[in-house]
């Protein structure tokens, strides 16, 4: 079984920052496993500006922000990158099994950092009843379809929930010629950053309905519309649309290490630890995690 001092699972901004920080502190052999064929994680689909204002004091897009870290990697021969490598199992003995094309390997790690990011909450998790037609997407999936694949998810769009990804997608879809008819939010205020409400909705005259609940999604083949309850006036109305985006929050992706919380030498950073609004803070905190992992390895060696 191959051994590494440190294994990092996930090559998004969190994993990248942790790897570089650990190498800077003296870790000598690090393996970074990334499921995708590209490093950068979710940043690759965030082609809008607004990243790096704190960390680099300039305004970058998501891919540009990630590229700053990826460009550093050649300076670190001690960091081995394994792409298209999906970690399927982590044990209490810090043995990690991963799959990649043509290979299923188990490796042993001195310390492990989980930087697996998050996933989006779905329509099903908030129990919206009705039909199950094509055209219901999580906001992040719509972002990926449009920004990575160049595919337009729909033409007449209603967005459920006012999380940041939903707000950003409202603007993005409008720029691509789709009509965003409404952003519906059950709470009294938007879940997103104020700058996104202003720049993504108000600047484009996209209505944000607060205290509005979606009661039903209708449509047999493709989405035909939604039934909405105005909670203040207790009135319902219909909105016709061919697409529904769901932007109702993110959940840390911790399934493969859910049973290992508190295990000495297992660290978690980035969105896998808690959901961050700003990637700059992910970088800051994940560097600390990289340092902590090296400290752990040193203290273990001292024993």
């Amino acid at each position, binding site marked *: 079984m191959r051994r590494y001092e440190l294994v990092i699972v996930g090559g998004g901004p969190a994993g990248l920052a942790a790897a570089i920080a650990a190498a800077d502190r003296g870790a000598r052999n690090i393996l970074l496993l990334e*499921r995708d064929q590209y490093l950068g994680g979710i940043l690759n689909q965030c082609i809008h500006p607004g990243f790096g204002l704190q960390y680099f004091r300039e305004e970058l897009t998501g891919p540009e922000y990630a590229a700053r870290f990826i460009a550093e990697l050649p300076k670190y021969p001690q960091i081995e990158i394994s792409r298209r490598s999906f970690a399927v199992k982590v044990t209490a003995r810090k043995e990690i099994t991963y799959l990649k094309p043509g290979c299923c390997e188990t490796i042993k790690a001195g310390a492990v950092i989980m930087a697996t990011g998050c996933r989006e909450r779905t329509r099903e998790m908030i129990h919206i009843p009705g039909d199950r037609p094509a055209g219901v997407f*999580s906001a992040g*999936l719509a972002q990926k379809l449009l920004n990575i694949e160049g595919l337009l998810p729909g033409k007449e769009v209603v967005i459920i929930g006012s999380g940041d990804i939903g707000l950003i997608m409202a603007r993005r879809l409008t720029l691509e010629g789709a009509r965003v008819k409404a952003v519906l939010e059950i709470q009294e205020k938007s879940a997103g950053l104020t700058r996104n409400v202003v720049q993504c909705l108000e600047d484009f005259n996209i209505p944000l309905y607060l205290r509005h609940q979606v009661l039903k999604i209708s449509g047999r083949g493709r989405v035909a519309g939604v039934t909405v309850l105005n909670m203040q006036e207790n009135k319902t109305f219909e909105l016709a649309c061919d697409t529904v985006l769901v932007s109702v929050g993110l959940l840390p992706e911790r399934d493969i290490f859910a049973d290992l919380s508190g295990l000495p030498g297992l660290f978690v950073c980035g969105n896998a630890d808690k959901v961050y609004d700003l990637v700059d803070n992910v970088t800051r905190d994940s560097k600390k995690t990289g340092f902590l992992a090296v400290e752990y390895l040193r203290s273990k060696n001292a024993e």
Partner: protein
Amino acid sequence: MIYDILIIGGGVTGTAVARELSRYQLSIALLEKEAELAFGVSKSNSGIVHPGTQNPPDSLKGRLCVRGNKLLRGLSREIGVYFKQVGELIIITTAADLPRLQKLLSDGRKLGVRGLRIVDRKWLAKNEPNLSSAVPYALYAPTAGIISPYRLVYDLAENAAANGVEIFTDQLVTGVKKGRGFIVETTRRKFEARFMVNAAGLYADEVAALYGAADFKITPRKGEEYLLDKKRENLTRHIIFPLPTDKGKGMLVIKTSDGNPMIGPTAEDIEDKTDLSTTAEGFRKVTDSVREMAPCLDTRDIIAYFAGLRPVSGADFIIRAETALPGIVTVAGIQSPGLTASPAIAEYVVRLLRKAGLNLRRKKHFQKYRPATSHLFASSVRRIRGLLERDPSYGDIVCRCELVSAREIREAVRRGARTMDGVKFRTRAQAGRCHGGFCTTRIMKIIAEELKLPLTAVTKKGAGSELVTGDRRAPV
């Protein structure tokens, strides 16, 4: 060409009949109106292989259910579909209902259900700890099992096809005329055959009307079901039923072959045969009544839901040779336990066809076995290594929630998947917690590549359910 037999309907009934007939020297075609098989009633049900209790002892469906339960065990081995015997408990909440349980026991025994017995609180506390302690007795039926309903259909169809059955999808039957045999018109072409089996599920009445047998009507009875996260696999050890009523078997705690527990179904008579919507009311009914049986239910564990429509026509199955139109067998009103009964229904239909004059000669080289499809999620690390040696793309993971590789998805398309739902039913990709958030684009690309379609033509479940509305990369 004139087929010996045409089967209308590619659900579990039609495909079971096709597979049974494929033992004989016959030319057979199966016609399905949807883009894929199993897109009717057979995709949305509880997946329970019923033991045969809860049916009147003199009913056809009771007899066929008990026989089907027996046959499915061997059949599942032959065609490589996963079947597991888990046992069921029919519970009562007051000891005063004990006589009703005893009636079910004696009815079941009359039907030949094996192993039935009444168990008490002590047995329940030990063997079903999450069950409400208010349950004094239950009827235990050890022969109840679980199976994946759509994979059963796909595997039956694949084995039937390997034995020569021709399968046509996207073929809505619109007319039946009398020729030398029967001329069946679809939206695309004509088929001719000497014999015909109507296994059209919810639409069996409308298809029967095409050949003048308009003496029954099918009413859809909606059942909403709610799936829980696999983490809760051990919510219960058995399938749990309340006492049945005239409306059906009631709301259950179900185990599914993929590990997710499921709760439901409701039973609501409706008009519209295409209404598969779930409702806030259904959600409440299911969760309220299941909480009475399993108080530890947490609705936050619900990861998916759907509704299915039972094709109801009276209390029993209608399976008959049309005497006015020799050569036609009608199979209608196949509500629950139609999935369980399917192999027995197939035997019964073949007997009716023989009586109607169909000449049955066994094939010399009937391929009884179909190698089981490999699923990473059900494989050990050792087995995964073996698969990787066969094809490196078993290591290319597309669906991370359910651990599905590019190879499995490609294979599903090569075996007949045409849509995103078809891939999901066959492989489980998109069926997990994130509901395709990460893997949708990859699956779309594999489907498009394999079927040589533009990405804009990839659908969720057939024409009219295209996933995206435009390709921005296309030259303007």
